[in-house]
């Protein structure tokens, strides 16, 4: 009990530390960057005097650094991520609007990638060095080496532009009904290409981890015991090997999150998916620094929380950690 609580406390501590480092980084980077922080925050080289005045006041740029930092932290704690210059709206509002589509895309893709990766990894791991294994491994390498945006563009070219099976961009058709089942089917239709792209580039990670752990677990001593006890290989595999071999893949779910969100951002740009990735692109184009920093902060927090959740799930799955 105490060890479980201690474990929880340690993980939460790590989470808070990560967030703190990200906040400090955010603060320091803007001020350490070459050029005037006001110009950076204004996103232009010649901001109007009113603008300079407003930004200086808002971020307390005429105050000592410590005061500025404290003001920054205080506003963050109040949920204020700053104000977008180009959209002239709070950053938090903009992110809240785009987080849904991003979640839909990443969750769908990750689940697909996990299921596919684990299934194929199991197939390969049970017959290492076979022809099928070589084929699957090669495919995994190929997919892993593909930039997600490029794979997305190629998919779009073939399935949307040439074959016309799938829509090229967006999340739904404005001409379709905006409610009910029809709307969701429309969204699903639009989701196919971006989700498949993101799933395919993630899949190799789960495939490789699963394959390696299946191979390893199959060589473990307890498998020999069960084999000596006369259990069928299939039974041993289903009831013992799988559970042991799945654990590392579950860890990957958490470790991968940063990579997945980066991939999602690029895929969103390709398919004009109305998520945070596209918001990021807009912010970059317009040099909207408060928005970029806000997105960075939120993504970091999401990754840290994801890692925490994975740790907890892992601890729940693996008795060695639960009671360790």
């Amino acid at each position, binding site marked *: 009990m105490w060890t479980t609580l201690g474990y929880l406390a340690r993980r939460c501590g790590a989470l808070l530390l990560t967030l703190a480092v990200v906040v400090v980084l955010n603060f320091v980077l803007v001020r350490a960057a070459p050029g005037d922080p006001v110009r950076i925050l204004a996103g232009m080289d010649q901001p109007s005097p009113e603008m300079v005045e407003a930004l200086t006041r808002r971020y307390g740029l005429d105050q000592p650094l410590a005061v500025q930092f404290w003001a920054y932290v205080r506003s963050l704690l109040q949920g204020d991520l700053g104000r977008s210059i180009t959209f002239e709206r709070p950053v938090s509002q903009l992110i809240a609007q785009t987080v849904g589509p991003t979640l839909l895309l990443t969750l769908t893709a990750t689940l697909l990638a996990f299921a596919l990766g684990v299934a194929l990894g199991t197939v390969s791991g049970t017959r290492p060095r076979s022809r099928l294994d070589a084929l699957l491994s090669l495919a995994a390498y190929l997919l892993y080496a593909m930039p997600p945006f490029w794979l997305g563009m190629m998919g779009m070219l073939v399935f949307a532009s040439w074959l016309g099976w799938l829509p090229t961009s967006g999340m739904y058709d404005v001409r379709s009904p905006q409610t009910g089942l029809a709307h969701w089917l429309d969204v699903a239709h639009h989701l196919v290409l971006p989700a498949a792209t993101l799933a395919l580039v993630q899949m190799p990670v789960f495939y490789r981890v699963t394959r390696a752990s299946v191979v390893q677990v199959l060589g473990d001593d*307890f498998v020999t*015991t*069960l084999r000596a*006890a*006369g*259990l069928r290989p299939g*039974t041993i595999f289903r009831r013992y090997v799988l559970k042991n071999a799945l654990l590392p893949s579950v860890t990957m779910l958490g470790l991968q999150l940063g990579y997945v969100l980066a991939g999602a951002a690029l895929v969103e740009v390709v398919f004009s998916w109305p998520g945070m990735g596209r918001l990021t692109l807009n912010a970059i184009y317009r040099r909207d620094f408060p928005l970029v920093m806000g997105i960075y902060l939120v993504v970091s927090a999401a990754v840290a929380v994801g890692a925490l959740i994975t740790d907890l799930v892992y601890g729940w799955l693996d008795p060695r950690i639960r*009671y360790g």
Partner: protein
Amino acid sequence: MTRDLAAPEAGGRPPAAAEPVLEIRGLRVSYDAPTGRVQAVAGLDLVLRPGDSVGLVGESGSGKSTVALAVMGLLPAGGRVDAGQVRLLGRDLTTLPEHELRAVRWRQAAMVFQKAMSAFSPVHRLADHFVDVWRAHRPERGRRARSLALERARVLLEAVGLRPDALWAYPHTLSGGMLQRALIALALVHQPRLLILDEATTALDVVTQAQVLSEVARLQREFDLTTLVISHDIGVVAALCRRVAVLYAGHLVEEGPVQQVLEAPRHPYTAALVRAFPRLRGPRRRLESIPGTLPDLTRPPQGCVFADRCPRAAGACREGPPPVEHSGGRMVRCRFPLGGDAGA
């Protein structure tokens, strides 16, 4: 909880001339190695009659564990039986297809491994292992199988000196000694006729080892087990076995009743091995070693495998295989064996 420990069908002790439980004839096993094929077991004969307890002693590289794995049909990749027979209750296991071998395993012959720490799946409770091992050889299914298996497991765990609620523990929460006992209990689930103990107490501390050894000795009687004890420790073998077989470089060099062999070894290797063991009683003396190393088993020597390290070896020993001599229930494979009463 009142069930008998032993199988209901197991009656009194069979007559001495009964069919052997295990009969190994001319067994040859080899492994793939980077430098060629290693002749791990080179023509082994060993017979275990019902109720027998035989100790197979030898140092690392002698091939003793290979014998156990060959009997169970569990040789690792790269290892294979080149010749000979392994008859378990009359059936030759070396020719049995895998699915028939599976039916034999654990019901007729079970094995306790050295590394109990890794012999259980780390993410399963002990109970899962007992239930699945039970199901593997029983017709019952579902809840009934589970409750029968657990009942059996509780009886066996108590028999090896564990509390029945150890069933609900995960392996990493138990000590090495407890896991080793649990593994012995698991081996007895289907009341095997033959129990192979492969260095089963080697990893344990002296006190725990003594506890486990005395429990095994009791189980041998209560379950009417025929046991093959593999160990590098002649003390362990003396504690558990009536007969001992000494293995060197894949060859059986001497065999006979434990006391006789240890007190008056006839093979020079056995004699040297016995002398190398420090004793708790008797005079304190300088310990003796056997100079030299094992021969290269990828190129086994023409003559006696021990000739290079043997103080009695003569030219003839290196030219051809040594003769085998049987007398008074003892066997020795040596051209110049030590006299009947020339002891350690």
